[in-house]
């Protein structure tokens, strides 16, 4: 009886280790990409996405960088085996109702230090099934293997 329960424990350990090895989350501070040009940022992000990692980025990419990232990932679909594109979502720390002064203050901060009060999640579509988003929260749905 005692041997049987030991085996069960072993099995559980093996399963959980398998899951943790399959999923890597890469926390990227804003400083890691702030000095890069558009190509540099996309290269960095795509490198991690192609390595099946989920990126949690402090801040956000510019609209132009985002569109170039989508364009780049589209060129890779069909050329890199198993690559199906990516999921991306940004959430802001801003509330719904901010006054004029607060808006101005945030705009100045945005010019000086970038949009660091935002969080962007980027992940390969083979790992991230969907990112459900509303103004206040984000839910990350992972693919079941």
């Amino acid at each position, binding site marked *: 009886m005692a041997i049987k329960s030991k085996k069960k424990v072993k099995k559980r350990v093996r399963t959980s280790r398998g899951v943790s090895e399959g999923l890597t989350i890469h926390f990227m501070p804003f400083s890691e990409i702030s000095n890069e040009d*558009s190509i540099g940022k996309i290269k960095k992000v795509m490198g991690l996405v192609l390595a099946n990692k989920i990126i949690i980025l402090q801040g956000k990419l*510019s*609209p*132009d960088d*985002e*569109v170039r990232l*989508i*364009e780049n*990932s*589209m*060129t890779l*679909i*069909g050329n890199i085996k198993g690559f*199906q*594109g*990516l*999921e*991306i*979502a*940004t959430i802001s720390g801003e509330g719904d109702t901010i006054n004029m002064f607060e808006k101005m203050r945030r705009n100045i901060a945005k010019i000086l230090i970038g949009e660091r009060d935002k969080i962007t999640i980027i992940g390969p*579509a083979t790992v991230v099934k969907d*990112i*459900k*988003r*509303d*103004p206040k929260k984000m839910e990350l749905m992972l693919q079941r293997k």
Partner: protein
Amino acid sequence: MIKIIKNFARRLFSGIFGQRGEVKMGFYGSPNAGKTSLANKICQDWLGEDLGSVSKIPHETREVQIKEKVVIERGGKKIEFKLIDTPGIATKIDFEDFLKFGMKKKEAQNRAKQATQGIIESIKWLDDMDAVIVLLDASSNPYSQVNITIIGNLVARNIPVLIVANKIDLKKSDIKKVQGAFPEYEVVGISAKTGENMDEFYEELFKLIKKAR
């Protein structure tokens, strides 16, 4: 970045030295938002013909479709524009999604390949637009990153934008949610399928083209 500056300079000079010729009006949005359905409705109402085929299967439009010299009339005034219907923009494409619609593997793979090329083409066209209608499915979550990315790019390029929430004929549709997601923009709810609220849409379209000229 250079393209954005070029586009801005083009718009600035055309503003200083008078009106430009035909306004290029782009239709952007996620797949299955109803871009081609709306383009067909406009073409039927003003030209008496369709622009392209529509389908429940996503990525039916995989190439940019253009209709030259579309003329609409409001209050005795006529306005002309070039209608540019673009393939839906998505961040991922899996050919297996098309298999669920009864497609064969080869056909699905081919559709996926064309869809990726269509998305690239849509993005390239962004720089050439004078005004854009961003179409959203009013029955889906409006906070999709594709919508936000498209609108963000239009703002950065100083291109006038009108947000249209389509499919208001569906019970699940929620126009207030769309308006809440984009409080800084004009949002018009329509049904391209039933023709609901097209009058208000044409009113806003007229204003948008005027802004772009």
